[in-house]
């Protein structure tokens, strides 16, 4: 703690930047793989924020949540990739703009 005293706000700023990057990625990428990656970035930005906040308060809770987030992200992506396989098989493309049968 002593040598590396970065203010909480700075880390929050970084993490929000990451969050924004992830969000942007979600919005502009069409490929489902990249979309999933962007989601990872968003989740990790949250995780980073938790770690930083935990450090700020001197509690272990932040890091516990970090672990949980990793697990959750893994689960999401696992299911996600499973679906991606199906998408590739059915739609013959990974471009999500083509998956719009349902509308209106």
């Amino acid at each position, binding site marked *: 703690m002593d040598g590396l005293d970065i203010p*909480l706000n700075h880390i*929050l700023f970084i*993490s*929000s930047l990451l*969050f924004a990057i*992830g*969000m942007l990625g*979600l919005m502009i990428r069409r490929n*489902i793989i990249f*979309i*999933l990656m962007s*989601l990872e970035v*968003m*989740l990790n*930005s*949250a*995780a980073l*924020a*938790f770690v*930083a*906040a*935990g450090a*700020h*308060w001197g*509690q272990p*809770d*932040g890091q*516990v*949540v970090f672990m*949980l*987030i990793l697990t*959750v992200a893994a*689960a*999401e992506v696992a*299911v*996600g990739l*499973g*679906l*991606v396989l*199906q*998408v590739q098989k*059915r*739609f013959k493309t990974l471009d*999500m703009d083509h*998956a*719009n*049968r*349902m*509308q*209106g």
Partner: protein
Amino acid sequence: MNASVFYAMTPILVLSGTAMALMIQASIKRDHKVASIIVAIGLILSLLGSYYASNFTQPVTVLLQVDNWSLFFTGLIIAASLIILSLSLKTFLPEGERKEEYYLLLILSVLGAVVLIQSSHMVSLLLGMELMGVALYVMIAFPERGDLPLEGAIKYLVLSACASAMLLYGFALIYAATGSLSYIGIGAEVARAYEQNPVLVLAGSAMVLAGIGFKLSVAPFHMWTPDVYEGAPTAVTGFLATVSKGAVFVALTRFYIDGNLYQYAGLTAALAVLAIASMLIGNWLALRQENIKRLLAYSSIAHFGYLLIALIACAHIDIQLVSQSITFYLTAYIVTTLAAFAVVSSVAEEDVRGQEIQALEGLFWYRPLEASALTVAMLSLAGIPLTAGFMAKFFVITVGVQSHLWVLLAALIVGSAVAIYYYLRVIFAMSKPCKVKGKASTGFDRTLAIILMACVLLLGSWPQPFIAYMGTL
């Protein structure tokens, strides 16, 4: 930790046990029937368990809050799941032999929902929500035929994950501001944190609201709803509409009230905007919808808008009445929606044309009981007296009137007036002379229709016992 803690956790434990039993069973012999029976037994046991647990209400660690209120919803959700299970049987039986996993997913999802309902901590909220959600993705994508389930599932997955990220980030901000992860802790610290850094608290809460709002499909986070409702098998749609949304709303209420967030006008205003947008947009979207499942999706958007009024009102009046209103509304909504989906799933085919309102034409004349049930459900959703939906609306309006939320009430009136149109369209379609006689109903369909219809009517015409019961929660 003493034994009573475990007793308090009975429902969760039973559900978990059921999940394990299913897995073991799957490794021994994969059998559809056995799996469904195990799930049914597990659900019934956990239902009894939730009644049993009411003798041991207490906070279970810092994560879960087992009290009468959450146990009531636990029971309600499990009962709803039982009905969903019965609907699923029909959906998945004809599909072939390799569908047993569905039951595992179902029970896991229910488990997630129960955790969510009892959560008193961000971590349990996260776990519950994700457990419920991840299982749901797969349930949605379960049918092999057609592209729609897959499309719905992938949309739901991506959007839901995005919402989770928002939620988590919001939690992180709140944690950063308050230093606490449990609701009570947040509630205790929030005032101080607000003074130090109001933006952190408000932005964090707003992001949490956004994340939760997504799950509730509140406008403007509603866009996924119709697509997922339509794409998913009807039973799963029913699950999504009742169990998932109900559990999330319970969690939201707990978070919002225990976290003392209702005292911040900015948040209240933000919620109010969400509510107004949902009431209006949901109803307008439903107005000329031809697909009954999409119609129900839009209608649910509006209903959660109405429900938010009660939540907003807790800034102004006694929490007791607010929580009663929420309890009543959610119960009424869940029962009514189940009734609707029970009929839709037994009548409508699992293809796009079969789900059109037109396909319901003449239902009154060849399946009068189910048509009556759907009529009652529609009237209840529209809030006509003698149905549960009316009493629910009565609660919400009372709460709104007492807190002088005139703008929200105006939106409610406009929304409800618009809504009458599309609910009536469904009824009108059923009353038309039938062109093609659809399939006949089974005794089971009829029984289910009667039971649910009776519940809706009973809640609406003789609500006093239930209100009295709510008073004890």
